[in-house]
């Protein structure tokens, strides 16, 4: 079987921190350290993601839920013997999957991150928790929305009581929103380069 490095080269060049994958020596410390591993929560651990990138498994990796499970606990970065910024590489790959349109439309974390959360925070410069949760619950329409709300209502009330949820849906823009907007615009501009 011939090596096909075309996918790996694209990742090295275009995915944020993707070039670090070259440095991986496949020791497995990252996957062994991941708190989600014992839960069986991901299809592939970080080591296997990197191995599959090198093996040219473009559709399999970019369409997988693996990168979207990362909780940014940084265990893998701390322990990686070769100093790979594994958390950042995994986030970079997730973003690359969105950019290339390879992410599965049903990927729940991807939907939440790229639509619900992003739109919410960009509009005002802050997270509006009440609007955020409503938007998320009703993402698939009225019917599932109502059942979601009913299912989560005890959690929501508990969070309200412990002041972890601000009930006001629209609190307006943060102070200095213009500066925040400028930063975002600049970031988009830089990314286009």
């Amino acid at each position, binding site marked *: 079987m011939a090596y096909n490095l075309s996918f790996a080269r694209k990742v090295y060049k275009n995915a944020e921190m993707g070039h670090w994958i070259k440095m991986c020596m*496949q*020791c*497995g410390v990252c*996957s*062994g350290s991941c708190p989600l*591993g*014992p839960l069986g929560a991901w299809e592939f651990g970080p*080591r296997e993601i990197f191995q599959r990138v090198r093996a040219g498994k473009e559709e399999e990796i970019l369409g997988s839920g693996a990168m979207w499970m990362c909780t940014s606990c940084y265990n893998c970065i701390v322990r990686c*013997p070769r100093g790979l910024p594994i958390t950042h590489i995994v986030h970079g790959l997730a973003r690359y999957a969105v950019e290339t349109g390879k992410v599965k439309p049903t990927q729940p974390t991807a939907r939440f991150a790229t639509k619900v959360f992003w739109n919410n925070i960009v509009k005002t410069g802050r997270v509006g928790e009440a609007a955020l949760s409503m938007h998320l619950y009703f993402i698939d329409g009225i019917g599932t929305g109502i059942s979601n709300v009913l299912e989560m209502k005890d959690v929501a009330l508990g969070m309200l009581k412990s002041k972890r949820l601000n009930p006001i849906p629209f609190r307006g823009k943060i102070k200095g929103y213009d500066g925040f907007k400028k930063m975002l615009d600049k970031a988009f501009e830089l990314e286009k380069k």
Partner: protein
Amino acid sequence: MTSGNAAHKTILVVGGGISGLTAALEAAEVGYEVILVEKNPYLGGRVAQHHKYFPKLCSPTCGLEINFQRIRNNPRVTFHTLTEVEKVEGSAGNYQVRLRRNPRYVNDKCTACGDCAKACEVEIANPFNFGLGKLKAIHNSHDMAFPNRFVMDAEFAKTDAAKKLVAVCPVGAIEPDMQPQMVDLTVGAVIWATGWQPYDAAKIRPYGFGSNANVTTNMRFERMSSAYGPTGGKIQRPSDGQAPASVAFIQCAGSRDHNYLPFCSRICCLASMKQATYVREQYPDAQVTLFYIDLRAMDRYEAFQKKIEADPKVEWVKSKPARIEENPANKNPIVIGEDTLTGVRYRREFDLVVLATGMEPNAALQPVPAANVPTDDYGFVVNDGGGIIAVGCAAGPLDVAGAVQSGTAAALKAIQALAQVKG
């Protein structure tokens, strides 16, 4: 050979391990004066602490004995134990060296009869066994120690108990008042053979060495396996002295890792395979598991690996374990990681875990006390063609055979350095 200043024919060898011994003897046996200094109270270095060599699995005692005989029979080698080099100044052909000779508190009248140790009531952790087991505060360093002379612990020497021992010695060898001495000398070349330290396993926090009694290190395991060691050669769990039914070896523990030692020490894979044979010989039913990133049976050692691979009770797991927990019920270490050949995450309990720690160059911990001696990124001394010649594990990680070859090469380099100066 032209006759010059006597210093031009004198070579100082710093470190009395296998590299230094070899370099000293090779140079002396072709007619050069050699002064060999060693920090410890005995010669033989790390090799003396080994139970067996790979790949022949014989005891290092006979090889060291041959070298000690060569020293005894060669009037050109002068050696000083308990001696360190304070500074080196000058250049090839003319180095001024200051030695610090630390007190042994026992003079050369000692016959190693052992009466003092019998009378001594104070015990210290045995440094030769990496702190495993105790020995008397006045003792012979180990059973095969050369020179065969007792030594007194420096802290103990300050006590009244030490002074009382003076009268016990039948030949008047004990001197608790002995002071360090500075010795200045001139030599033509310096061979730096200060070797290595086992990497401090306590720094590898996820592996729990120090808090988990049944996680040990390869050098401690070597002492445990030796008939002259703290358990008389019985391999046992430190927590309860029980025979282990399963032993795991973890390769690259603190090696090839930018958090610890970034380099490969080249010997640990073979050392663990060798130690697997200790377990399998002593306990025919015991299971051995080797965790590795990739196996590095350097040079001609693949045959040894094949031999170990043929043992069905030795299992190989391609994985660098992420961490080690402890089962509170039986103090078993639980090794956690991902098998990289299957992608399966494991959580496996063993009776005993041995961390294959690497070599930290002593020259990194205690630099060469001379100007302009280059070292590499890891603290190994780099040979730059001058009159200070690094050898053995002071220059890079080596096995015993490699260290002997390196010692011979260093002797020649030192002789060349002298010859160039004489012109």
